[in-house]
């Protein structure tokens, strides 16, 4: 298995599209950080002008913690697109290019090949999230330094600067778990089709579709909402509450693990029995 994972990693490292995600994060986060560096005071004062009517805000409001929180809020919803570019291509892309035929003629079980590809996809998702954390939190620290974090969620929460790091660590871990769900979903779709675009479009369509349905908040869907994986993609925000709802977070982790398991089992089942006609 280690041999297969190494081979898959080698292929990913050599593939140009692997770097699109890193480049996109670098450009977007870099541009936003620079914008905040030069025009941050104005932008933030607009955002918190209501607060200033009731509170007196002192100190360094624009800091790495606030920027990381804001960037995570706006970017994490788009990371699935970048992940699908690689994980959606893992099987379908190889089927389309004919190389799947080449590797399936070697003495490895298809289940082993699928698992190796899935693990490599997970490692890619983790690498992308680590890079996102480095770009937001790391670059933010360089440009703005640390400071207390003001969170506008269920009211106003001010978190002391020395109490923030661990929250970000868990928030990124939670976000990474959600991205592994996305990677598993696109891998599963990838096992059903023979073109590289299908899994990318299919995964994004499912994510957008579910988001729209549940953002509308129709009562008919209210009861199943906790069991839909997309509703857990924003659970990382819970780590920035004054009283963290540990039970909700545990349930969220469990639901996402179950989805990872289900998506991969379906993918393995289909991949193991499909005829390779390309």
């Amino acid at each position, binding site marked *: 298995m280690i041999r*297969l994972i190494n081979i898959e990693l080698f292929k990913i490292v050599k593939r*140009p599209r692997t770097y699109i995600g890193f480049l996109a994060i670098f450009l977007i986060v870099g541009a936003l950080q620079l914008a905040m560096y030069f025009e941050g005071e104005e932008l933030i004062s607009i955002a918190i002008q209501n607060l200033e009517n009731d509170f007196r805000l002192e100190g360094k409001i624009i800091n790495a913690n606030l920027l990381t929180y804001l960037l995570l809020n706006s970017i994490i919803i788009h990371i699935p697109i970048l992940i699908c570019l690689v994980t959606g291509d893992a099987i379908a892309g190889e089927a389309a290019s004919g190389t799947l*035929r080449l590797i399936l*003629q*070697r003495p490895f079980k298809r289940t082993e090949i699928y698992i190796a590809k899935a693990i490599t996809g997970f490692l890619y998702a983790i690498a992308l999230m680590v890079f996102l954390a480095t770009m937001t939190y790391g670059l933010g620290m360089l440009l703005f330094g640390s400071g207390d974090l003001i969170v506008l969620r269920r009211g106003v929460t001010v978190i002391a600067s020395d109490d923030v790091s661990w929250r970000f660590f868990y928030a990124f871990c939670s976000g990474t778990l959600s991205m592994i769900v996305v990677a598993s979903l696109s891998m599963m779709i990838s096992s059903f089709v023979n073109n590289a675009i299908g899994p990318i479009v299919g995964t994004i369509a499912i994510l957008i579709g579910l988001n729209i349905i549940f953002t509308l908040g129709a009562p008919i869907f209210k009861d199943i909402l906790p069991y839909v994986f997309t509703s857990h993609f924003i659970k990382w925000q819970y780590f920035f509450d004054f009283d963290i709802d540990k039970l909700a977070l545990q349930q969220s982790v469990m639901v996402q693990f179950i989805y990872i398991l289900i998506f991969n089992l379906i993918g393995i089942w289909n991949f193991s029995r499909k005829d*390779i*006609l390309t």
Partner: protein
Amino acid sequence: MSVILEVKNLHKSYQSFKAVDDISFHVNKGDIYGFLGPNGAGKSTTLRMILGLIRPDSGLIQLDGGRVDYQNKKYLNQIGALIERPDFYKNLSAYENLKILYRMSKLKDIRIIDDVLKEVDLLERKKDKVGGYSQGMKQRLGIAQALIHQPELIILDEPSNGLDPQGQADMRELILRINKERGITVVISSHILAEIEKISNRMIVINKGRKIAEGAVNQLMSSESIKIQIKTKSHAEIESYFNTHLITFTNENESYYIQWEEAKIDELIKNLNSENISLYEVKQMKTLEEYFLNLTN
């Protein structure tokens, strides 16, 4: 001569379409075994089933006397294959492509990569990306990847596709060399009779998923082995006659084909008439080539 590959009663259907219909054949060790049939005859499907890329509906495939187990892929250590197009990772060099397959074959001596690249005359271009290779170079690299794990049997599905006449001749020479010098058994498919005739010692002819003929190439190609094409509307009667007299036949487009001795054609016609089987055409097809051209046209 011992049998390296045996296929018995292989079937594969896609809904109502029978892609492979009761194909049986065997390949002896040391053979260059031709797999001849027009496009869409079921050649690639059969070869893919041997490699486990497609699951048969029923039938038996044996390699070196052992039944092929699709769950345990270890039998693939004995087979190298080039199926249809020689597809590779275009962004990688020939060496990197072969290194991936070398590692997947759990080999121990990495010098084998250079060895097979030398065999197919690509050693000097090993660091070039495959995306920049010509069709002929890709085909030769396809042979190299089939050889890398030193298999006993290689399966080449239309290896001359897309090659110019010189490329085709080079490919034939390469296959003959691999067979003679390395002692590797070769199964080669083609829709071109001349290609199979030039290189193979035994062959099978298939059409519409069914076996038409099998045997030594020189025997099948000789004029002594005459194919007779019989056209009749008494389908049930003639099939009953063939079955009763143990005459192997195939049925294509209202015509029945049988193998028959030239001297006994008169006798056959008389017998069929006496059975009240009305014939409206009986045609001699002197060679397999004529027969095959009739099929493909």
